[in-house]
């Protein structure tokens, strides 16, 4: 590529993967305060892939995240892995935004900055909708290279292996493109001490929704096009039958399955 490649990685702060998650009774939104906020695990693969591409082809990696004040920790984590700069979109009006609003905000940030590659993790471990990369691709009118288990950059031609139910498809497009990566595409690096120190001095831009050209009335809970009517904890399961294997454990399972007409 003749010019310096510009790579954006969109990341999200989510409750720790291993924590129990719950909705807040007052507004049916995810309770983000009750668990530690971490960089969405699948986004770590996106950051790593961007850094690997940068190492091979040069260029600059910018981390983009929409989220409350403390989401800045997540951007710093990605910067400490080695990314060059961060953009944080933070605005009280954004609380309760649905995927449509989120994609509009991200598209607003990304559109005029000349990114060649926009990389996402394939889903967040909290909402698990897996739609934002496709939505951003739709809004920006850029080719969609999603669910990549492998990414190759050859000048302005980007080729991926798109994971499918039966294996994978090889897909090719010309940059700029939107990419999402699946787990196991790489092994995300751990931030080094040096990386952590360096991250504190890296440029971080903080933007409000006005800065990204999105109207306050089009984001947040009140503008969401789908709403939670009600929610409840799943009723506890009746205790099952647990037996110790005394040489006939397999037969006992078969009997259980036969009683329930599975076999």
């Amino acid at each position: 590529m003749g010019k310096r490649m510009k790579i954006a990685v969109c990341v999200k702060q989510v409750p720790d993967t291993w924590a129990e998650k719950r909705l807040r009774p007052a507004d049916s939104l995810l309770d983000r305060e009750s668990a530690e906020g971490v960089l969405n695990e699948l986004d770590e693969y996106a950051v790593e892939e961007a850094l690997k591409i940068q190492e091979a082809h040069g260029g600059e990696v910018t981390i983009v995240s929409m989220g409350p004040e403390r989401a800045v920790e997540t951007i710093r984590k990605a910067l400490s892995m080695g990314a060059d700069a961060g953009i944080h979109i933070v605005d009280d009006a954004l609380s309760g935004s649905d995927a449509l609003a989120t994609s509009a905000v991200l598209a607003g940030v990304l559109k005029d900055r000349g990114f060649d590659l926009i990389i996402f993790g394939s889903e967040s471990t909290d909402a698990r909708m897996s739609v934002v990369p496709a939505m951003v691709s739709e809004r920006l009118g850029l080719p969609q290279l999603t669910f990549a288990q492998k990414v190759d950059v050859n000048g302005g031609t980007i080729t991926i292996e798109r994971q499918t139910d039966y294996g994978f498809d090889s897909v090719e497009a010309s940059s700029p493109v939107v990419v999402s990566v699946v787990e196991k595409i790489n092994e995300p690096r751990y931030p080094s001490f040096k990386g952590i120190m360096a991250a504190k001095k890296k440029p971080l831009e903080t933007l409000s929704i006005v800065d990204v050209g999105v109207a306050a009335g089009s984001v947040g809970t009140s503008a969401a096009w789908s709403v939670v009517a009600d929610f409840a904890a799943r009723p506890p399961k009746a205790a099952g039958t647990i037996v110790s294997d005394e040489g006939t454990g397999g037969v006992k399972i078969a009997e259980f399955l036969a009683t329930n007409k599975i076999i």
Partner: protein
Amino acid sequence: MAPILVVVEHADGVVKKVTLELLTLARSLGEPAAVWLGPGYGDTGASQLAEYGVATAYVVDNSDMVDFVVAPKTEALAAVVKQASPAAILIASSAEGKEIAGRLAIKIESGVITDAVAIAPDLTATQSVFGGSTIVHSTVTHGIPIITVRPNSTAPQAAATALSRVDVEVPVSEGARGAKVTGRTAATKASRPELSEAAIVVSGGRGVGGPEGFGVIESLADSLGAAVGASRAATDAGWYPHQYQVGQTGKTVSPQLYVANGISGAIQHRAGMQTSKMIVAVNKDSEAPIFELADFGVVGDLFAVVPQLTDEVQKRKG
């Protein structure tokens, strides 16, 4: 009456089971209509759709649908939506199905709900979130509800009707032809059902001990006609391919029967299988949290219990 539009998942001209489930669900909400995107619509597909109550099948027989990633399908679907004016649009909750739903929501300015496990006649969707720990009821408040539905949410039931085909011509825009499919590679796997669609899933975890240990898991799966799954511990260790991972960072399944072998049942795994209709667990550790979920559990060595179960299943099949 405005129809309930169902996007057909098909392979080699055959309608997939998940679509038959969606058509059955659609009939409880109104009059189902179907959209067939791409080549392959023929007698086989048409008779399946008719058998499941489809009066109108909109067919977009255009190879751009499969030669380029997702965007052409979304354009075509938006055109069909304009023509059919449906009351709701149902799409299977596959990776691609959700992408189509997301892009369509922008195109037709409508709200989208993903991973529904049930839909009420007033179009309120039920979702099972946070690994099945919370049941949520949601509604779309703007536009035509777009709802993706998880496989195995409805038992397919036939209700035959007369079907008519409506061909829809969609000129696919240049912009939608940006991501070109240049090749398709099938992973080496036996004739097992797809993990997310399978009625029975047999999984292995840390207790399987290594890649060779998955032999007994696969044998049991094959005796039951099941798909094979794996916990993150097993896929992270490289014992089984990553695409078979069940869990929070892998696939979500809700089969009729889930058999967890050597899997402790950490939240990471439960998030992907907790909504299974029936759960059987085999684990050496009687304290393993998987037993809290199990309808039937055996505390013991999976290398003794699982082969015995396989033999017993074979015997009972005659």
